[in-house]
């Protein structure tokens, strides 16, 4: 037990890798997918242990496990968990388990598929758990390759295009982050050892010190912030770096769309809160307007694009752009409410987007197309499916009582809060009240657009008279229900008891985070 406690995080990260190796060695298709499922379930169970061991009001990073990796550069293997990462870790293990079930009917090269899938899980968990910047970067990058192959091999007709587009877009961001990685290391050089730091916990303080003693000019800080933000904004993705997302989603297999939307995008959001803002909070304060603009632009532009889509999956993809815009806005405003809201938004969007992509997948499995205009009357044909879809869609459009609402309203309220005299942006003189309101107000408009395109989708896909060609469709089967019900229940629970599930973990960490921002 003690061993488990000490090595829990490491175990969590590398358990899927072990599973991947086992999967590769599996004799046949069945063995492979059962191994994979078992691995994801064990990982899920293991991550639930975190709930017991996690200290809620601790604030700082806990359960740290640390060891030297490359002492020459002061690179450590350091993993830990705090309120930022815990919900995301749980989300990851949860979604991965469901995605394993969702990929049950993969026919082609099953072993390879599940092995890559599990490697991907390692990368995702590693990203969320790494406390060393270098380690973070490694895991951040490690996720690229499996995803490239998962889209490229098991994807739709234009899979190669989508896969390489995904890869190259993200690569551009990664290289930007690499420069930040190097830069921060050099600017935080310790006089005694001559070595910089990669420790994400210490770096904010070291950088603050470097700014204070003049060794790091604000120009540099600003550049680093911009580079880091570019990396994460591509990943999030925010307009105008988003065009990889619709393509990747449309071509990716259903389970991968779930993971992509629910988890990979969150790596971007997580990076914003773990790296970009804590490290370069001064620049974050100064450049809030650009970030907020990108956020609001994503919200509105993503929603407008979604409205015009004819492909169901593309529509959901654009809705992701729109929703992740709230995360960006939440970061830009630098208020606790907005930050908490953005963090919640990530979790909520993880649930709802996974659900929606699976819902699209269910329809696609039966109809073999995703043209919205060719659907209709599915509410009559498949009532249970419609019920579950309605939960997903309404959660996505931010209906109170379901998870989407909390994040949205908190980000919006937090944005207004930023105009408060005592807020960080106002107090530091980076913004005036008059500058903040336009952003907050225009973000509110996203609420209408989201409702419009989501409801229009419901109308076109589910409502209307039953269509003859879909009459024979079978209702969602038990496997599909096994995926959808947990998501629906989580959507509901998160919407009703947000503090119990998320904020009790994030709040103290956000508190700690904001001490850095002042």
């Amino acid at each position, binding site marked *: 037990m003690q061993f488990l406690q000490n090595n829990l995080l490491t175990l969590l990260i590398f358990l899927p890798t072990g599973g991947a190796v086992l999967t590769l060695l599996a004799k046949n298709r069945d063995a492979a997918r059962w191994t994979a499922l078992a691995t994801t379930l064990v990982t899920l169970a293991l991550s639930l242990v975190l709930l017991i061991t996690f200290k809620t009001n601790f604030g700082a990073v806990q359960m740290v496990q640390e060891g030297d990796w490359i002492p020459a550069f002061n690179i450590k293997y350091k993993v830990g968990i705090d309120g930022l990462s815990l919900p995301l870790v749980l989300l990851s293990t949860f979604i991965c388990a469901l995605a394993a079930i969702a990929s049950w009917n993969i026919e082609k090269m099953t072993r390879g598929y599940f092995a890559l899938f599990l490697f991907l899980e390692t990368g995702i968990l590693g990203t969320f758990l790494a406390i060393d910047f270098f380690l973070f970067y490694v895991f951040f990058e490690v996720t690229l390759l499996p995803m490239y192959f998962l889209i490229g091999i098991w994807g739709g007709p234009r899979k*190669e*295009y989508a896969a*390489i*587009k995904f890869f*190259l877009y993200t690569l551009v961001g990664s290289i930007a982050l690499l420069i930040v990685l190097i830069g921060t290391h050099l600017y935080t050089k310790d006089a005694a050892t001559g070595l910089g730091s990669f420790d994400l916990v210490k770096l904010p303080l070291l950088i603050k010190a470097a700014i204070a003693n003049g060794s790091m000019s604000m120009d540099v800080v600003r550049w680093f912030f911009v580079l880091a933000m570019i990396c994460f904004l591509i990943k999030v993705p925010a*307009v*105008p770096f988003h*065009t990889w997302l*619709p393509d990747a989603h449309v071509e990716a297999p259903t389970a991968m769309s779930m993971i992509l939307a629910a988890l990979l995008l969150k790596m971007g959001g997580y990076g914003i809160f773990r790296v970009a803002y804590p490290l370069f909070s001064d620049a974050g304060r100064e450049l809030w307007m650009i970030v907020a603009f990108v956020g609001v632009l994503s919200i509105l*532009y993503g929603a*407008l*694009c*979604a*409205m*015009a*889509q004819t492909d169901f999956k593309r529509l959901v993809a654009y809705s992701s752009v729109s929703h992740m815009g709230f995360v960006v806005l939440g970061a830009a405003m630098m*208020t*606790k*409410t907005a930050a*908490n809201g953005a963090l919640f938004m990530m979790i909520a969007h993880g649930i709802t987007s996974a659900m929606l992509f699976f819902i699209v997948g269910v329809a696609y499995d039966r109809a073999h197309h995703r043209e919205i205009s060719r659907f209709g*009357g599915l*509410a009559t044909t498949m009532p249970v499916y419609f019920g579950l879809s309605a939960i997903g869609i*309404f959660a996505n459009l931010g*209906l*109170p*009582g379901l998870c989407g*609402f*909390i994040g949205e*309203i*908190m980000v919006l*309220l*937090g*944005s*207004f*809060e*930023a105009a*408060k005299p005592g807020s960080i942006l106002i107090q530091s003189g980076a913004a005036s*009240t008059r500058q903040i309101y336009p952003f*907050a*107000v225009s973000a*509110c*408009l996203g*609420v*209408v*657009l989201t*409702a*419009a395109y989501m*409801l*229009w989708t419901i*109308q076109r896909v*589910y*409502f*209307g*008279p039953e269509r003859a060609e879909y009459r024979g469709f079978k209702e969602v089967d038990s496997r599909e229900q096994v995926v959808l019900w947990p998501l629906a229940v989580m959507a509901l629970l998160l919407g009703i008891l*947000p*503090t119990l599930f998320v*904020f009790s973990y*994030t*709040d103290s960490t*956000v508190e700690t985070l904001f001490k850095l921002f002042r």
Partner: protein
Amino acid sequence: MTVAVLLLIATLLPLLSFAILAFVGKRMGNPLAGIVGTFFISASFVCSLAAMIVWLSLDVAEGRAFGFGGQPILKTYDWLPGGLQIGIYVDSLTVVMFSMITLVAALVHVFSLGYMADDRRFPRFYTYLGLFSFSMLALVLSGTLLQLFIFWELVGLCSYLLIGFWYEKKTASNAAIKAFVTNRIGDVGFIIGLGLLFCHLGNATFPGIWGSLGNAGMAQSGQVLILPMVQGSAGAAELSGSLQKAEPQFTRFPHVTTTMLTLMGIALFCGAIGKSAQFPLHVWLPDAMEGPTPVSALIHAATMVAAGVYLVGRIFPILTPDAKLFIAIIGCVTMTIAALIAMAQTDIKRVLAYSTLSQLGLMILAMGIGSWVGGLFHLITHAFFKALLFLGAGNVIHAAHHEQELTEFGGLWRKIPYTAITFGVAVFAIAGVGVTVGDTMIGFAGYFSKDLILHHAGAFAWLATKEGGHTAYWLFFWLPTIVAYLTAFYMTRCWMLTFAGRPRNQKLYDRARETPVMYIPLAVLSVLSVIGGTALGARQMIESAAKETNNYFDPRLRPPAVANPTAKVAQPAHFAGFSTAWQNAGAYAHGDTSTIASDAYRLGERSLKYVSFAFVVGIGLGILVYSKGLTIPNALLRVPPLRWLNIWLYRAMYFDEMYAGVVVACTMALATVAAVVDRYVIDALVNLSARVVRRGAVLARLCDQFVLDRAVSATAEMVQEIGAAARAPQTGRIRTYVTALMVAVALSLAGAIIVVLSTTGR
């Protein structure tokens, strides 16, 4: 505390019903599911009634007379970090709203047992009704604006689901979307208002808000509201007493300007514009009639649409005079145009829908001019008679096998007499039939509430113009007066065309019949429509609610014994009357008939004579014109200006077409543009730069030789072209290589020498 628990139970019972029906409703089937739903909501009604009795008897325990003086209950719970609380707030208004909502809901449940009996999604209907009842009750129970917003959205969802209940019909699903999206447009305002409020106060409970910003009603433009909490500063002592009840964290907020408060008030009111279907977002309500008629009765007449009025009532103390003016104007406009349009409609439900709009406009107007009690009182009475009207219409429609055109009815009173009678009662109630004999008022429910509002409107208009205010303020009195005449007329028209005269569609007439389960609710409601104005004590409850609210913020608005008559705020000329009017009207509500208020009261009373006979004129004219069915009106409508007017009004002043042409089309165009931009501009930006690079490259011709694999992507293409350019020198000819080498030699030499010379020159 008992009251709170009872109300909580009353709230949760419909939720339980929803949960049960959602999972096993289908298996229960028809009519068991309906009976279960009805049982739960009835139990809820019983709880509400019990709560009301307990609430009213609280004072008895303290040795005072029965009723109207309970202590408000506030319980909060930290739901989200950052002080975002939810909670319950119970005062007299809550209690009376609960009783009204549960009663109407229960009656609608009963009615639907008959009305929806043949529907194949019968259980789902009750499921939705359960969810709606829960949401509506929880909305009323809300202790914070955030919670109110949450349930505000949920009732919107139920409205959406129920309007689109027959989703196979394109019109139904369109109407559902329209309702939800239009509401959301209003909600944007709500969120903005919530945000502004949150920005300054954090999330506050209602008492918290009132305590902090309650003096907004007296604020002048540009004034900075700083509530002095420091002991000894001017006015501190006076205010501190009132603020003790407010939560301490909301006592300091230095930078709230009146302009900001006005914007905030208007923004919050935008929510009400959406939900209560006020101009210019009123277009969804007539379309919402696509839903089943019981739904129209419950949601789109009695309860949900009134939530906007309720919201204004709750935020009333923080509304600045400017905001109130805005509210009054919106209410006035809605009331007038809806009444006009209602006159030309031929669909029985649409007539009722526009009548609802008109009445809602009246309530909003009442709130705007400061008749808090009048507006909310009218909300209650209107709920009864409008529910009655809709259920009656439902009966007619049911009897007529879903025919809704007035032109197809006629003479139905013979076939469905009970409906005809109850409908008639409702018409009298909405027309405001009643007389005042000395100090005694006798009449139908609508008479009392309408009278109160008009009385106040008269007083307001007088006060507003007294100190140099614009004469246009008189519109706030004259328009409702005119509308009172119109209402009586078009409601009579509706009754006449439906029940009186000769059957215009014999086949329909022959098949018409009534079902007992459906007219029992009608009977109950008609009783309420008769006695609702006096016997139920609704008005007294609301008056005590006003008192309870006042207690939270302003000593000047307390009963006269406490008020400080000399504390008079200097008023800017333009809004002088406005704020005075509200203050004094408030005082009037509490029986302060001393000074200026008593003048206003008398003036208002005097002006009431202009409306006293509205119902007589309206109903009489209606009977006259429609006594022979459609003969007379058809003859009248042949006159060109009238015909044009009729068409204009029949098409609802072309609002729908306007919005479809402007707002919807623009949004869709914008969306299309965005999508096109996304696909062909942003994505192809790289492509474009590739082309630029290719054009600009010296090696353009060589590039073109290598038309390469274009499949990968636009970016790849660009790199490929660069690649082609880069490998162009690799001709394979050794002499080229050597020559390149020599060029390099020469260039390096030249470059190096320049470097060297420039450095040695220093």
